[in-house]
């Protein structure tokens, strides 16, 4: 069971949520604008597509507005909102994967197929853009759940209990998922470089970093 977050809600936020619960339409817009940027960036980092990210945000906010009456202020509204967003992102990604499996688009280049056509050479890693490309590919290899955990941890700076509240699991599971995500990243980078000895040393910094 996820821990109840110790994060207090801002007074303005409470007022806006209460107005939403009473069905005040302008309050919905205020709540949307309060979280719009963070939620959209999170969605974009998880689904890695601007159109899909927009779909995720829209569907998530519609669900939040529909069920905001059930929110009882026992946890952080932010965590509750992000939980809806994570679930929606996973649902949309699964739906898209199913659609692609049923109707593969000729010529569509995915991260996985891209990796076969582009092989990084060790010399190229001195370039910052190559590092960015490598990380882009490696993060793309993570499944949506692990990617969500990584984004919450390293982009939004959520603590482990906060992430636990979002993904609906104990904090210990969050630690193991983060560890697993780092291992998957290391494996992806190693696979891409073709030189495990070069990656294992450097990647140890991530693996040993405190949570």
């Amino acid at each position, binding site marked *: 069971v996820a821990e109840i977050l110790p994060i207090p809600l801002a007074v303005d936020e409470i007022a806006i949520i209460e107005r939403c619960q009473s069905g005040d339409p302008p309050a919905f*817009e205020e709540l949307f604008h309060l979280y719009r940027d963070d939620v959209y960036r999170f969605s974009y980092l998880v689904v890695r597509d601007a159109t899909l990210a927009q779909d995720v945000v829209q569907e998530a906010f519609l669900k939040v507005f529909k069920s905001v009456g059930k929110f009882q202020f026992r946890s952080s509204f932010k965590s509750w909102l992000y939980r809806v967003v994570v679930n929606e992102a996973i649902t949309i990604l699964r739906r898209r994967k199913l659609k692609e499996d049923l109707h593969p688009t000729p010529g569509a280049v995915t991260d996985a197929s891209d990796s076969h056509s582009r092989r990084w050479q060790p010399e190229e890693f001195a370039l910052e853009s190559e590092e960015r490309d490598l990380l882009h590919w490696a993060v793309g290899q993570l499944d949506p759940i692990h990617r969500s955990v990584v984004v919450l941890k390293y982009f939004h700076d959520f603590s482990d209990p906060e992430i636990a509240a979002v993904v609906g699991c104990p904090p210990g599971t969050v630690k193991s998922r983060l560890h697993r995500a780092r291992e998957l990243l290391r494996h992806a980078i190693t696979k891409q470089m073709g030189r495990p000895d070069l990656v294992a*040393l450097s990647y140890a*910094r991530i693996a040993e970093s405190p949570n």
Partner: protein
Amino acid sequence: VSRVIVDERKLRLFLRQEAARAEVPPDMWQHIARQLNQNEQRPSRTRLWALIAPAIGVCVAASVFWLTVIPVSDHVSPPTSLTMSGDHRLARVSSAPDLPERQQVKPVRYELGPESSLVVSRVQAPSHSPNRMGGFTQ
């Protein structure tokens, strides 16, 4: 050969750079507001449909009953064959000559003009009446 330094700092930096590329669409709230309005209107439409649907169902059932079960009188039995050929413009209509009543087939000839003909054959109704779908009630 240079080593790849991929650490926590670079992962954070990468995620921030990626997020900076994501610009929130300016019309996103309009989409959501439109969807909210549609969701508000949907329950009223559902209620209206709930009222209309049983009435439509009753009408359909009554029509099916009327077509399949209730027998049709001999006077309105439809022609069983209809053939047309040539120019369809109707020029002159003449009724078929009177035939003995016991003869079952009563052809009626409609002349449509030169090289044209319209023949309607009527089959006399059997002893038990057909229904409107072509079957027979017992």
